[in-house]
């Protein structure tokens, strides 16, 4: 259970929030002008990276406000939260953040001992 800092209410337990998938996927202004393929990509395709991910959250059991967060999907660390109308932070801001604890070992499970 992670802690999430709602930009409006402050730090709260994860159970108060709902995840809304990838952020910065903007609904096309004029859907009719899009090809079937482009529209299909908007409706059905989302990124699912291991590592830095820009995603949407809603404080559903709180202020009900939507906001964006930058999460490292391999460590579950929330690196930044920002309001919907705020600028998307640059990927380079998160270069020095902790890598995955599993560190993609060659063998065994999630242990760094393997790599050393």
């Amino acid at each position, binding site marked *: *259970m992670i802690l999430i800092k709602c930009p409006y209410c402050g730090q709260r337990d994860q159970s108060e929030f709902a995840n809304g998938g990838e952020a910065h996927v903007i609904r096309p202004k004029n859907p*009719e002008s*899009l090809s079937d393929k482009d529209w299909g990509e908007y409706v059905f395709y989302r990124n699912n990276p291991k590592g830095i991910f820009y995603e949407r959250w809603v404080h559903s059991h709180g202020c*009900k406000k939507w906001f964006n967060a930058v999460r490292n999907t391999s460590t579950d660390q929330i690196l930044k939260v920002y309001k919907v109308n705020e600028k998307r932070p640059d990927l380079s801001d998160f270069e020095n953040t902790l890598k995955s604890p599993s560190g993609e070992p060659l063998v065994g499970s999630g*242990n760094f001992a393997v790599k050393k």
Partner: protein
Amino acid sequence: MSAINNKCEYISKKQIKIIFDGKTYEAYEGDTIASALLRNNIRLVGRSFKYHRPRGIYTCGIEEPNALVQIISEHNEPNTRATIKRVYDGMEITSQNRWPSLRYDLGAINNILSPIFSAGFYYKTFMGPKGFWKNLYEPLIRRSAGLGKPPKNFRSKSTHQYHNTDVVIIGAGLSGLAAAKKFINTKYKVLLIEQDSYLGGVLKNSNKVKTINDLTPQEWINETEELILNSKNINILKNTLVTTYNFTNHLIALEDKFAGKKIDLNKSELTLHKIRTSNTIIANGHIERFISFRNNDLPGVMLASSFEKYIHRYGVVPEKEPVIFTNNSSSLSLLKTLISLGCKPKAYVDSRKKDNIETEIKKILKDKEIQFFSDAEIEGCDGNKKVETITIRQGKSFTKLKSSMLCVSGGYNPDIHLFTQSKGLVKWDKNILSFKPDTPFQKTITLGSTSGNYSFKKLCDEINEKLSIFKTKKVSLDINLNVPNKFSIKELWETKKKSNSNWSKSFIDLHNDVTTKDLKQAITEGFDRIEHLKRYTTNSMGTDQGKISSINSLAIVSKMLKKEISEVGTTTYRPPYAPLSFAAIAGRSTYEFYDPERKTSIHSWHLKNNAVFEDVGQWKRPWYFKASENETMHQAVQRESKMLRENAGILDGSTLGKIEIKGRDALEFMNLMYTNAFSKMKPMTSRYAMMLGEDGMIKDDGIICKISDQHFIATTTSSGAPKVLADMEEYLQTEWPHLQVYLNSITEQFSTFNISGPKTREIMMKVFPDIDFSNDAFPFMTFKNFDYKETKIRIMRASFTGELGYEIYIPPKFGLELWEEIFSCGKEFNLIPYGTETMHLLRAEKGYIVIGQETDGTVTPIDLNYNWMIGKNKKDFIGKRSLSRPDTSREDRKQLVGLSPINKKDIIEEGQHIVELNELPKKIINPIKYLGHVSSGYHSPNLNHSIGLAMIRGGKNLLGQKFFVTATGKTKNIPVEIVNPVFIDPENKRLTS
């Protein structure tokens, strides 16, 4: 050979009685089940998981793999660790996994049959022939494998408690107490958590420490505990086990409120602590590990430090003349303890070379004339259900000794479970031959033996250094020892076997009955990755998670693979650290507290009038009303449906979701959210509308009332209301923040009644004599507001039954009064109350769909032939673009049709398939062509035959054609005709006149 009772201050003098397998034994208050059994000389306490081998008490703590028992006097609680569960007077316990009795267990034949139970036996053995799994293997395995039986007649009263704190210290042993001392009277809020009912840990379990700051260990513990208790910032939780270390320093700990006491059924027996902390200090020590040798599972084999713990902690000496087998320096403490009690070990077997063995050990052994074997090992032990003879190998010579107990020490593992749960990284330490914490992932500090520091002398510096991040004073610990400060160990995981037989097994996992041979076999078969090997052999997958053996298995596997242990890596340690009762997790969220119940303002009337309720989301809705005691549901629904179409009926529709949409841009917003066009709609009219997903599929439906371009009220399905409101909010906030619109859930602000049937107008005129209900003044799909008594009401002309109908909205406070008024006026017109089942039947006769019944997230409005609802001229609405995608505009999509049986006596069942065959083949070889499914099926009392709504491929073009519907338990299918789904009043005359 009997166990002797030693003086021990932690055990009260109070004698109590416990019952084990039907026999009564004497014990002391403060005993665990295990110490009480050992006190009574009971060695055999259970049968093993797979081979049903006799098993005894192996350890003295949470790590126990063998001594699992069932507590009859506590709701039959199974798989309880006898080594930690405290006894009370009258406690009733049974052994597990044996039949007919512990001493004569028929399942032990599995031991002889063991070649078929070897690694991967579940995957290989029970493959065929067909049908054998379901009828023979599964019932057989279920009866003979596994351990205890599930609890019964049990209602938990467990509670949850939340904590927010600065520091959590896990473990109140020497390190934990010393760390807590640093926080006394500081600004930090500290929680000290101890699994046992006493503080002190290693200080109470062994003889290792002589003095601390010139105090005896007990004096030091008492002094420290008192200081902590007098300090306002530190709380102690005893009998509490930290089971889980989650992200963001979130810990879960389980407190046993009745440790050592009989459960009071009126009180909470368990408390689940949910702790959020800024820093976590793990000081829960180490776990001794065993060594694999021939028959290392025989009752009588026990870990050396556990043996010592029984003496110090419980005052029980399990055996006066045991054989001690060790590969490290720590066993000196057991040796000295036994000598001090006047006991003399039969032999001391040390795998280390003589030169490497501490002088003090050698001196004691010589002085006391104890047989001493250096550079030696235990080859194995033998005996009938207990250790009788022990075979020692020294070089090429073998010595056989008679003793009933063998104390084994294979070294110590830092207890890294919680540290790795926290995602910290561990590394291999050659000096202690184990993994120890390396890089923490969270704000986690490990202290003492948990951190891999086995030196008492270095502990003080370690604490002061690692806790220097806190603004606290330094602690001082001047420790005098009974044992060497320097830890010395020689690598030894498995000893060499002399003889070979099926009975003689060398175990690597006692809990799951995995042998070292199984590991070899799994590697031979290609399972050479540690995570694969674990699952294939089930090694360390028992409820003990291989606490005394998992590192051993890594070492043995690494030897077989000719790799370093650090290259093999560890498997993942997952929460919980020890089994966590479901009752504790559920807490008070059980039975009526599991989910809120929502009741309408008419609920009391429904109760009085024999309503049978249906759960719709959290709502209780009348399903049908029983006219007499013996009326069945079918009879009631048929009666209600017929009566309504003849006279009139009224439904409590208060649960329907209602959302108010207000603001400058409300019209634009509604046009975007719903398929329908609202621009040309006149104020004070209403419209049936649909909401789609961006993929074009129907999400919800309802009636939209337009009060003005700036004010709408939308009704939703009863269970869909929260989701619809949330979706509207999401679009407003994220896609169209420029729209000025405000949303409000007003579901609970109104009681809603749906009254319909041919006599409705007359009833309404009688209830509301001042209102003109004529068709011209009050046409279909319009609504009006009225003053009614001291409140206001809204009446809308709408219908879900196909008959003339009105919906009345009134504040809930006045709801029941109006409902009763309607009934007194409706009496002469034979007005009846009806429930949701009749509503569903009537709407099916009319061909109206229900969200979630006809639709399943793959249905578009076009599939339903509801093209008229789509505002084609609107530039955009949610899902519009998807309706012209090639897949959504396919002609052969499943489409809504009606079904009418050709033989009018046949019954069309909901959920059945629609096929072209009149009869299913006896043996199905090729797939049968499937055309669609029956989404709704009812017996229509008004048509006097069964009807169905169905979703059929290309159904729109199949009108008039004949197909077949499958039927439960029959190969003969029902012939049906595809018809218009509107069975009643297709011209809508009843609705609109």
